[in-house]
């Protein structure tokens, strides 16, 4: 027998979840979204009188794996000061023991929703380049995102692009953390690798903890990540995700580009996606900057490294790049001949 409707149960659950922000400088405004680890709320920072987003863990206790992961995410973000990465303002524990961190409140749309309003391929590619810029910055600081997908990218009202949700981020270099802190206390994540790697067993690579199942998003997750091959995960895993994200920006789907499904995607762009998402990591772009460079070269009307052009393709590209001048010179020639004919009639 059922005494309460599902809706009523949801309301009760939401009511029970409402965090008590007493003792913090924040005043709760509204719930924004639920994630894997907890809930994101908007709140007002009463000291600075600004809106912030609070990511609050579901379960109390600073020592749980989830709490460590949330704290680690906050620390990773705090060290990645970049216009394309959402900044963290504060971290703390609520009266009920739940860990939270406060970050910039980003007003905008998720990339998968925003992209519907962007019809031009060059504009979509420019957005992609800004994502690459943020991810490349993180890689340069020894951090892998490991869950890049359209839902984890926000586009603000002024076109600012922010890479969100660094909850699965992996720290590759110990230097990323201050001395005295544990090295990447929560890295991955794979069911098949539940036994922790012995301390010092893998120099400079994160420990594996007892967390959950394979993390990442199908379609955007590299094969080595899906296999749980933690030793093989490096910057090229994020490059795979970026390739899938690029494909999504071009076709609306992360999967392979078929000529029939997307006839208007040029071969060079399809080749960039294919190179970035090759199953063998060694055949992908070695660094995000190189992927971004190829996309930039496409935007500038230059040949891309991922695709060897035929003579016809080279000619078409040359014509597109210099179309105005070619047409201008042709017009000049026509006028010149007309003048010649007119003068000697």
């Amino acid at each position: 027998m059922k005494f309460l409707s599902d809706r009523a149960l949801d309301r009760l659950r939401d009511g029970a979840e409402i965090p008590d922000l007493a003792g913090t400088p924040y005043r709760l405004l509204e719930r924004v979204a639920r994630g894997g680890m907890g809930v994101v709320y908007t709140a007002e920072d009463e000291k600075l009188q600004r809106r912030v987003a609070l990511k609050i863990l579901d379960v109390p206790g600073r020592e749980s794996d989830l709490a460590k992961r949330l704290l680690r995410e906050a620390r990773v973000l705090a060290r990645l000061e970049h216009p394309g990465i959402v900044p963290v303002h504060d971290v703390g524990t609520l009266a009920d023991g739940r860990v939270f961190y406060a970050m910039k409140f980003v007003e905008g749309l998720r990339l998968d929703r925003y992209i519907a309003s962007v019809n031009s391929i060059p504009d979509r590619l420019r957005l992609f380049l800004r994502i690459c810029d943020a991810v490349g910055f993180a890689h340069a600081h020894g951090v892998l995102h490991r869950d890049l997908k359209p839902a984890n990218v926000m586009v603000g009202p002024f076109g600012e692009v922010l890479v969100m949700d660094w909850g699965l981020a992996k720290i590759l270099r110990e230097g990323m953390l201050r001395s005295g802190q544990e090295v990447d206390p929560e890295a991955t994540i794979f069911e098949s690798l539940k036994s922790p790697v012995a301390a010092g067993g893998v120099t400079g690579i994160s420990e594996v903890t007892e967390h959950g199942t394979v993390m990442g998003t199908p379609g955007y997750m590299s094969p080595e990540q899906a296999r749980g091959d933690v030793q093989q995960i490096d910057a090229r895993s994020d490059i795979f995700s970026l390739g899938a994200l690029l494909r999504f920006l071009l076709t609306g789907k992360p999967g392979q580009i078929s000529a029939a499904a997307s006839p208007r995607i040029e071969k060079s762009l399809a080749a960039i996606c294919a190179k970035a998402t090759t199953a063998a990591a060694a055949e992908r772009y070695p660094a995000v900057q190189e992927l971004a460079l190829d996309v930039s070269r496409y935007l500038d009307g230059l040949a891309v490294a991922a695709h060897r052009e035929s003579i016809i393709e080279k000619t078409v590209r040359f014509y597109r790049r210099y179309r105005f001048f070619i047409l201008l010179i042709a017009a000049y020639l026509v006028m010149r001949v007309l003048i010649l004919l007119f003068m000697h009639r």
Partner: protein
Amino acid sequence: MSLSKPMLGLALGGTLGLLDGLTGFFEPSLAPVMGSVIIFSMLKGLVSGVLIGYVSQKADSMLVGVLAGIAIAALLSFLVILRAGMALFWDIMLPGMLLGLIVGFCTQKFGQDVGAAGSHH
């Protein structure tokens, strides 16, 4: 296109000057001197182009660029007319002015302003 205005003027002026010279093949009477016609037309285009580009760099205005282009090209064409004879006045002057107009427009629209680019550093 990331050429400075004088460089763009040089490239475009040279190309149009060369094409101008090549149209001499439509005039059978020029056949014995086609080599000189092509070389001098191209030289005229190159000099016009670089001068127009230089003026465009100094005066950041489309109207000034186009008018200066026409004037410079007309002046150089007139020098050629003085040598070739007044009988060819419009044969030389009209294409020359057309070249000046196009180069003046293009250098203003597409040429990089070196001074402005330098100020970013």
